[in-house]
């Protein structure tokens, strides 16, 4: 009988078998990496807008409060996108001929709204309510990040369900005094564990992990 294979095939065979394990593992890792990457979550990807509106300028420099534009954030599930009218309140006087603002003026003239690109969006079957979160001491920056430092807005959080659950399971880690809700610069104090727990009891916050809280 003649040998079918060369001596080296022994090593080859074992290497292949052994390698297969790592190959499978590698693929699995790759897929999960992709699914959690900015490509899927949009985290850290600045979104172009029809008008180069800078939150940084309006919040940090001008010092506008979030609620000046997002009027219904305390009353409704929907924070509200300002009508062009709101822009014109100031820009009827300021930078009245800045070419950058032409789209805004045009919108005001024609009544055709500005089609802003949406940054934070959830699937149709997820029901999020801004008003109650704000009421219960969850600050804007907790979810939206330091908007006052973003020229263009991007997602700082994945908005994955597991991300929501973090806070719904441990509100004490994220809750802040109601007075600080709209404070962009707020950072959890060193003793957040203590303070948070106190606030949770004070604001009667429950850990809401029932499905129907967000899905119906």
């Amino acid at each position, binding site marked *: 009988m003649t040998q079918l294979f060369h001596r080296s095939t022994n090593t080859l065979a074992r290497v292949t078998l052994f390698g297969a394990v790592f190959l499978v593992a590698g693929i699995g890792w790759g897929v999960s990496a992709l699914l959690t990457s900015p490509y899927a979550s949009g985290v850290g990807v600045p979104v172009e807008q029809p008008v180069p509106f800078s939150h940084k300028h309006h919040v940090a420099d001008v010092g506008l409060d979030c609620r000046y534009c997002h009027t219904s954030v305390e009353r409704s599930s929907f924070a509200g996108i300002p009508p062009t009218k709101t822009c014109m309140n100031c820009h009827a006087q300021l930078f009245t001929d800045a070419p950058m603002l032409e789209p805004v003026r045009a919108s005001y003239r024609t009544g055709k709204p500005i089609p*802003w690109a949406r940054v934070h969006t959830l699937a149709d079957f997820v029901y999020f309510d801004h008003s109650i979160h704000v009421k219960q001491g969850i600050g804007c920056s907790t979810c939206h990040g330091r908007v006052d430092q973003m020229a263009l807005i991007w997602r700082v959080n994945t908005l994955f369900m597991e991300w929501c659950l973090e806070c719904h399971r441990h509100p004490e880690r994220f809750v802040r005094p109601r007075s600080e809700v709209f404070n962009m610069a707020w950072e959890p104090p060193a003793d957040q564990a203590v303070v948070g727990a106190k606030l949770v009891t004070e604001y009667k916050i429950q850990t809401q992990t029932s499905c*129907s809280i967000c899905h*119906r």
Partner: protein
Amino acid sequence: MSNGSDTAHESLHPNRLGQWRSLDELAGTPEFEALLQREFPERAAEWLDPVGRRAFLQLMGASLALAGLTSCSSPPSHTIVPYAKAPEDLVPGKPLFYATAFAQGGIGTGLLVESHMGRPTKIEGNPQHPASLGATDAFAQASILSLYDPDRSQTVTNGGQITTWKAFVAALTSRLAGSSGAGLCILTETVTSPTLAWQIRQLMAKYPQATWVQYDAISRDAVRQGSRLAFGEVINTVYRVERAEVVVTLGAEFLAAGPGHVRYARDFFARRRVEAAPLNRLYAVDSTPTLTGAMADHRVTVRQQDMEAIAWAFAGALGVPEAAAISASMPQAAWVAAAARDLKAHQGASLVVPGDEQPPIVHALAHAINRALGNVGQTVIYTDPIEADPADQMASLTALVANMRAGQVQTLLILGSNPVYTAPADLRFAEALDKVPFRVHLSLEADETSARCQWHLPEAHYLEAWGDVRAYDGTTTIQQPLIAPLYDGHSAHELLAVLQGDGPQDGYDIMRAYWQTRLSGEFERAWRTALHDGVVGGTALPPKTPGWKPSFAPAAQPAQVFEIIFRPDPTIWDGRFANNGWLQELPKPLTKLTWDNAALFSPATAERLGLQNEDVIELALGGHSVQAPVWILPGHPPDSVTVHLGYGRTRAGRAGSGIGFNAYLLRKSTALWSAGGVEIKKTGRALQLASTQHHQTMQGRNPVRVGTVEELKKDPHVIAEMGEAPAKDETLYPPVTNEGYRWGMAIDLGACLGCGACVAACQAENNSPVVGKEQVLLGREMHWIRVDRYYAGGPDAPETLHQPLLCQQCENAPCEPVCPVGATVHSQEGLNDMVYNRCVGTRYCSNNCPYKVRHFNFLQYSSDQPTLRLLNNPNVTVRSRGVMEKCTYCVQRINAARIRSKEDGQPIKDGEVVTACQGACPSQAIAFGNLNDPVSKVSKWQASARNYGLLAELNTRPRTTYLARLRNPNPELEKA
């Protein structure tokens, strides 16, 4: 539901939002885009794209199968469009409520309509309106679907050619220029609208020779004639049911249909609870099964032609002078005597109610009996008629047809009604119509009548137009639009304004013009209050005491012939709702049929004639004949057949055309409600009927428990002992407790009429799809709440029992442990959550549900039809193919209330969360609330001796419990 907006009466008025004129313009406007973008972010394009529109019932929607519910959120993909100039009163994401009214047969029921971002989405009753008190019927609930019906006519047409309103106005005005109205006729439905009547009177002044004819297919002529026989004038009768301790109905369906039935049901059943002793007692004489009769403590069935004799017998027994000579000799004599004795024993607190479809003489006798019993002023209130002109409609229609045939009608304006389809066959209305040179038809759909008229004008739906209407007691409501007309529609008011020429042309201005002088106090305030409250104060008609001028006498006994009985269809009425999928698929309360009407026979008669269910027979009467499928209905009188009007439409739309048979073809102008001598021939064919319930008896397992007052008095445990429920502590598991709220529901079977308002309300609130006849035949209907109907006792005189069945929210839910992905689990407040987006569709939960209240999207049922999407409740996920769904106690309402309560730091009050079914229920048979609160209504109900859990022996521990049906029989008759 509280009226969410105090200052939002007219934010939708065209003058305030000028750009909201027609849909086409609207679709271009940023406001509307914004609105769409918010509710259907990625679907706006389809709205603007006309070819994107699909068939009403899209059963093979693979297109959407992979869309809809997916598993995770995606990066920013679409734009969001704000307002350029935001409307007042509108907080994005918060619904507003507007008061208006729904009219049927010209008689109104007050509503509060929920509106999301300018889209009316849900109808509730108006608690301040006497005919509603917060409840509605199925028609009102479903009427919102007609608003968005993609088959509604959308353009003015002339001879089939698309043209414009302007062109019509020009044509009409030129035609009538300088005319005295000779040959001009206006054909309307019953008019109670003060403004419309005012406009017509003005027209009559301008065109003295013009004529005005009213015609309703379901007319109340007999009622009016009856009161003429009794009083020599037309009198409107209002019942104070809550004062009646003994009620006798003569073929009356007064709890489930007709003027004020929603209110009557509430008042009647308020006296059916053990708490509210003494209970009232209901005797029913039925010539065809009625829901009212099904609730009776004692019910007899008589053939229609014997109804008069029964009425005389009652009259005789109760000393009505005109009936002194009468001695009852019919088989039911003993029964009548007993009932009569009971009535006598409750003089002034009793009530005899004749059915609207009964002959005038029965009405006259009822008046006489109530008078003899001293009920007038107590349980029976007489007022002036609510109709603007209480004419004899059939007579005037007959005259009109004669004139048309004689060529004396030159211009005919038909407002709303559909006479070509609904007019009695013997009038041959259609061919007479052809003789009229200038025919105009204003209607929601381009229907049978439109097809016979040169001019068809799209009518504005009542949710798009200004108007006013009176309720059963005269109370007037000003109807305000919730949305600008989707399809360039106009109201009857606006059409008449065109005839009038000068004066206001716009619905809003017409209304204000009429009411300007008629509202008490400073006009703007009064106007706003009237709009806000949904009732115009002080418009209820005052009681009056008409003179007693009887002009009737016993007639000869008619020969016994096989008779046919005509009735409006329980869900599509006279046919106007034929294209309304919700009402088509709403099971008819007694037959449980959907999508069809049938010829109803009693079991005995069917057997004698050798008829089976679904056999197709030919019904012939007076030279006309129709082919109809047979349905055997226990409790139907012998030797008669009942057919429901409203089916067999030819131009109703994609959902309503070509289904059922047209019973109008057998109807004679001289015999509107019943006729003798119908011939029945078998055809040998059969037609499958889509019934939602195939087994009518309880098979010895009493899901519906019934007890009499006496039994309950003797032994409070009698109900509980009808089944064996394991004790709470009989378990090896650690007990599950719900801190805070513990939601639960209780349903009073003694108060459930089986009308189906809850089903329609649930469908509207929860975006339930319509699946079509084929799917219903397969057993795939999607109603989250269904009303089971069982028969007990013999087939000819059975006891009819109704049981609404929705998710029982079991504490030991059998559906939950079997779900492999945890798509149905318990919430912290003890709800049996159903997570649509997690469901993979194994259907194991449904198999394991002993109540079978789960429903599965076997195909792509949810419609992607753009207008129908506007109807969706944005707070409830639209379910896609392959997903299980079920009742969640309207968890979206619970969540809204919880958020509200947390924001104002107040716990949710009892009655703050009202489920859709509970809110709609006319008889208040449903209680919902927090079981941790011992004083909540539901806790009290569940503590009642009548309380029991359905299939509790399975230890499912249902959160929804039932209160046993309560009977209050007359001991005298019970013995027999």
